[in-house]
């Protein structure tokens, strides 16, 4: 009886569309935009056509397997040709394909709506995070996975596995409801792909090129997505979270962002204590550096150099600053100068110079970073 309930439950899940993040989900969800709903509709239609064709073909096979067997005394017939039937079963599938192609074409063309958007956001894929730039607003920020420890074998166990595991970020992409938002995609390094299933939007982010799509989400909510193109080590650890706010809340968020930006600029002017730098630096390190250099600073031999006891982290400060700010061309070490503000850079370099027994006692202030850029 319990088994029957289970089966019924599974079948029910297969046909319902609501449970977005439910376990045992078997079907595509319809999502919240016209893209996702169009995709869902055509998916459903084609799937059912395939089920019906499959039932006919497999039905014939099963019938034949049961009845046309030698052990049942069946004697093989002589026919091995029938032009009429072959023509029929070429033409009928062709007609079925046309019946599929017409609605598919309609759905695709509907996605090409080119009415003007109210706002544009540039989405840049990085290894391994997203960057959002609200064009014309001077709001831009990185969006990192909120649990960077998940990406390493040695630290993954310490990460809590809850409903938003691998689906949460530190800074969400915030957009207003009921607004056509133009999204422009590019990449800083390799090809990534920005995918939010609830929106039905998946677009490759290609270095040097701009791709475009748009969303218009009718209702507020939180929608989660993932990178959908293999982009290196942490391809599975660069999620996307879009928070759709009411128009009023969005306006409040925008002004909040501008205030925060002003505060961050101010914090770059002041002098930090070593303790503050170390604690902030550890946070920055975990988010941005541990992916490759590991939480224990040991790196991956011959792939990513270790920082624990390394010449750069314990030697000349200017060299250390240069490596972090300007990167190392020809390697995977990106330039973090353009990606982080002075305070974050000062903190993370201070941390690297004093953690894991490096203990140089060096303290780097945001003003040092500004001078070194």
């Amino acid at each position, binding site marked *: 009886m319990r088994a029957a309930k289970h089966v019924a439950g599974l079948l029910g899940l297969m046909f319902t569309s609501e449970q977005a993040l439910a376990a045992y989900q078997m079907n595509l969800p319809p999502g919240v935009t016209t893209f996702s709903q169009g995709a869902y509709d055509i998916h459903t239609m084609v799937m059912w056509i395939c089920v019906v064709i499959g039932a006919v073909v497999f039905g014939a096979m099963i019938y034949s397997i049961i009845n046309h067997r030698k052990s049942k005394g069946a004697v093989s017939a002589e026919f*091995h040709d029938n032009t009429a039937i072959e023509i029929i079963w070429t033409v009928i599938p062709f007609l079925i394909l046309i019946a599929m192609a017409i609605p*598919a074409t309609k759905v695709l063309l509907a996605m090409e709506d080119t009415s003007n958007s109210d706002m544009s956001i540039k989405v840049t894929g990085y290894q391994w995070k997203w960057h959002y730039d609200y064009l014309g607003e001077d709001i831009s920020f990185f969006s990192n996975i909120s649990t960077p420890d998940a990406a390493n074998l040695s630290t993954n166990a310490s990460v809590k596995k809850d409903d938003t595991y691998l689906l949460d970020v530190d800074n969400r992409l915030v957009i207003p409801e009921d607004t056509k938002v133009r999204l422009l995609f590019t990449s800083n390094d390799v090809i990534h792909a920005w995918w939010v299933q609830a929106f039905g939007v998946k677009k490759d982010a290609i270095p040097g090129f701009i791709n475009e799509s748009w969303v218009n989400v009718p209702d507020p909510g939180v929608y989660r997505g993932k990178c959908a193109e293999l982009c290196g080590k942490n391809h599975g650890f660069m999620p996307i979270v879009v928070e759709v706010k009411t128009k009023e809340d969005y306006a409040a968020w925008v002004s909040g962002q501008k205030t925060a930006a002003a505060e961050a600029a101010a914090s770059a002017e002041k002098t930090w204590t070593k303790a503050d730098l170390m604690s902030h630096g550890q946070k920055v390190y975990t988010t941005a550096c541990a992916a490759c250099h590991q939480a224990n600073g040991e790196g991956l031999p*011959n792939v990513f150099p270790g920082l624990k006891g390394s010449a750069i982290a314990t030697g000349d400060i200017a060299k250390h600053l240069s490596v972090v700010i300007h990167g190392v061309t020809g390697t995977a070490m990106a330039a973090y100068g353009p990606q982080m503000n002075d305070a974050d850079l000062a903190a993370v370099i201070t941390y690297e110079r004093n953690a894991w027994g490096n203990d140089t006692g060096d303290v780097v202030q945001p003003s040092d970073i500004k001078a070194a850029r």
Partner: protein
Amino acid sequence: MSAVIEEHHDHHDHKPSGIGRWLFSTNHKDIGTMYLWFSFIMFFVGGAMALVIRAELFQPGLQLVEPEFFNQMTTLHGLIMVFGVIMPGFVGLANWMVPMMIGAPDMALPRMNNWSFWLLPGAFGMLIASLIMSLMGMGSAPNFGWTFYAPLSTTYGPASTDYFIFSVHLMGISSIMGAINIIATIMNMRAPGMTYMKMPIFVWTWFITAYLLIAVMPVLAGVVTMMLMDRNFGTSFFNAAGGGDPVMFQHVFWFFGHPEVYIMILPAFGVVSQIVPTFARKKIFGYSSMVYATASIAFLSFIVWAHHMFTTGMPVAGELFFMYATMLIAIPTGVKVFNWVSTMWRGSMTFETPMLFAIGFIFLFTIGGFTGLMMCIAPADFQYHDTYFIVAHFHYVLATGAAFSIMAAVYFWIPKWTGNMYDEKLGKLHFWLTAIGGNILFFPMHFVGLAGMPRRIPDYSLQFAEFNAMATVGAFIFGFSQLIFLYNVIKTIRGGEKATDQVWEGADGLEWTLPSPAPFHSFTTPPTVK
């Protein structure tokens, strides 16, 4: 003339033996055997990598491997299965069977045949060496997926990438030479009376596959050469900085890549077309349409490549064209499935192991075909692309499709190769465990793909856990069942119930007129075909 005969007489007295027999073989049977053993060994190597992948994916969280190593596993698993298992497996079957099926004494170019084979252990030795070096901490093996998109594989690829490129070149040369050999053999060495339209379907499918190979393997060679040049000689084919285009990589790669997947399936169609009539005791239904359908599939395979690229930002006209063209392939493929079913219909079937695998192929390949049809609908593909839905699709057509057909072929023909019948009970056990395990492994992938799980990730969110656990259980059943197959093959080589010449009651064709085991040199006098 007599001098030549005497020389050859001497040759006959010289039984090939020892390691030289294999290193220097010019015999299509021995070379076929080597290809098949190579494929079988690679199957276990690639399969072990799959088990590492599935073991890591058994539960959410990282338990076994670093993400960097996981990417190496998925990459090498794909490369080995595509280039080291399926392709050499079918070449091995071609080598063994095509000459016998057309009444020829050997392949047209026996020495080149030998070189075609021996390139492969070299090529794969390099790939596996890069993995061993990675395990020893000396830098990553290829980690960019078997599709090695630029710039991940060019600007950002590890040092082993250049060896990967060399490896691909060697595999490509091997395939091209093999294909030339097959075409020359089929065109020139058919027994008198064997017109093209009397050839067995397996020969036809390999004939067409060989043309696909010589058309597209050179394009693969071109794209990896461009990669090599971008990486080492300062060019910018795929580097936007220098005016190149990463998307162009995808175009050139998939121009090869799509025909490649048909290269991997057409011989499978041929195998099934030999087996089903034999065990249904009825001629294949619609012989000529089978031939034309195969040729249409081959032709259409050249014009559909960008259905792998719907999310790259293609204009609508391009998406529509590739969608329509891909949908068209369903028609000749459907015709073939209908013809197989019609062969079964009102036949007098028995269900020995080869027939079980062949029927399994028809069921499961067709499921893969249905998901393929769903994927070619561009707006729906935006939700499927790069998810486990795609992974499910291609494993259905390649694992429970092409690999099933190779297993079917081995059971079908091993009595001819060895003179011994395989153990039927073990064969059936192998079939059922593989079929059930395979479905437990791959069917849930449809669900997690539709639910939103991307591919090529070592860890996933909690809502995908249940089906992933199921898939892992299926993987271990599927994987370990292959040991039964290995045992059965070795057992059969060493002995067993003696096989007759015809072996199977419904068997028909020149190969079944030879003794079992087939002599080292067969059809030295060509038979006449009526």
